[in-house]
């Protein structure tokens, strides 16, 4: 599929667990307390080397949001989502930010296996 264009990041990075493509800088990490269907998720200021899917309205734990799924640009895995818009004022801080699922990313010090303990999470808020 074409000649994939990737950006190289400087510093400690989180990579796609499947193809090792760099996705986000550790310094852009905002919160580790988010949740997704498969378990924990991290909120980042910025994510790179991803392609963005269609926007859709989803009811998440914290209310109605407009989100778009994001995919690793190299292997195409769904690695999380992006907040496009939030209905409630208290949730507005998320707009424009990215959530990467903990189970889909690796930070180099990861164990090979990650066990999902939460059955039906949606997204969570910062404490």
């Amino acid at each position, binding site marked *: *599929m*074409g*000649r*994939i*264009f*990737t*950006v*190289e990041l400087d510093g400690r990075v989180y990579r796609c667990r499947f193809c090792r493509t760099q996705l986000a800088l550790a310094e852009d990490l905002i919160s580790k307390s988010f949740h997704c269907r498969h378990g924990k998720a991290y909120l980042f200021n910025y994510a790179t080397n991803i*392609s*963005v899917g269609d926007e859709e309205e989803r009811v998440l734990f914290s209310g109605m949001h407009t989100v778009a799924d994001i995919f690793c*640009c*190299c292997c195409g895995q769904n690695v999380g989502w992006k907040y496009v818009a939030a209905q409630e004022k208290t949730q507005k801080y998320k707009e424009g930010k990215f959530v990467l699922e903990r189970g889909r990313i690796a930070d180099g010090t990861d164990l090979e296996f990650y066990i999902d303990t939460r059955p039906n999470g949606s997204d969570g808020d910062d404490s």
Partner: protein
Amino acid sequence: MIGPKGVIKKIEFVRTITKALYSLGYERTGAVLEEESGIPLYSSMVNLFRKQVLEGNWDESLITLHKIGLDDENVLKSVSFLILEQKFFEILEKNKIMEALETLRSEITPLSINKKRVHEFSSCIVSPSQRILVGFADVGTETLKPRMKLLEELQKMLPSSIMVPERRLEHLIEQALGVQREACYFHNSHESCLSLYTDHQCGKDHLPSHTTQVLQEHHDEVWFLQFSNQGKYLASSSNDKSAIIWEVREDGELTLKHKLIGHKKSVLMVAWSPDDSQLLTCGMEEAVRRWDVHSGECLYVYEKTGLGLISCGWFLHGKQLFSGVTDKTICFWDLDGKELDSWKGQRTSKISDVAVTKDGRQIISMCQETVILLLDRETKIQTLIEEEQTITSFLLSEDDNFLLVNLINQEIHLWNVRNDPKLVTTYKGHKRSRFLIRSCFGGLEQAFIASGSEDSQVYIWHRSTGDLLEALPGHSGTVNCVSWNPSNPYMLASASDDHTIRIWGLSKVNGKRKDTDSNGAVHHLCNGSSK
């Protein structure tokens, strides 16, 4: 007033035409027009003045000059000066020294202009040899020619309302044609197409927008292609680890000339030598190979031990080549493989685009994700082009004056890099989210910008306005690269992930054109695409 808009004065219109008729040599017609219209080309005073100048009746001509109706004092003086100058020299020719002196003293000097010239006149009286130095040719018996020349000079000085300027009508028409040509949006044809009978307007059908050929020799995605400098060949490179040289035949059809096998990795790009006799190919993080176009033979393999090469190019008129290296440097070689230089500037490693101006003076490369560095090798001056979004690729124009920059956010920016870099135009509409998509200049006088796209279409924009002109469907995979034939404004090539190369041209219907390009009829019109 005449004309539908009521801005043309009838008298001016007729006089301009009369003047044009005389210029063309149609004396009788000119005279008839003057009579029939009752509008003389020149007023009676002016006619008298002209007659007097040609006959050498200087004093009378000066009197008439004052009656012509000149408002500008300075013009009056300048014209008088020239007339008196002629009078002076003609008297001097006849060796009437005293008379000449008299003219100089009482007529020329009081004008108080051109004092330097007046001094020169004085020296002419004293020594005859000065005359030639001053520029006064020997009149001899032939007085008419210099007088006619004088009249021409005088006519230029008189205001245009009195003396209709020479070739005024031709000038007005050329101006109008120029405006039409400028306004021609799709202008992609040669000058001979301009006619006075209709307003010039190239239709959209002057853009190459129909697939005329599908080339299917590659076994995998085609990542790069480029026409040779003279437009006689096309070189393509593919994920199938090969590059192909195609020949562009007289009738516009492309045929396979050589398959260049040797690389062990995908071939990222190709680069034509300035004389089109050799081709460089670059394997992905591998080596650069130099090939002979005529024989298809590999002449040399350039490598760096332990490192990989990611781009290649020529400079210094084909005497040297450069290559981007995975260790973020740029390496320079001479043809025999001798390493000449290695530039270790701040560079990003993954973006392989490097450009060097034809004189070898400027290196243009990516120094940060959003910044392009222009380095002058002689003065060491660094200039930066700073974008707000990540740059995915760029291309230096043929004339080394413009940089076409592709951004990660699906915008293409055109920068003028002749002096201080300046953003000129932005082009939008195509799709890019994962791959390296390239764009190019093209068409007559590089008036268009073309680009590949992830939606499998070829996009064409109007260069100066940035307007999207065409989105051409046909490929069944991402179009990675496009190249416009430099010697044929109607031929465009595109390389795609669908393993094919498409050649685009004019539609069959528009096969007949007035210019002298050899490409005419359409061949191999394919339905759909391969694979």
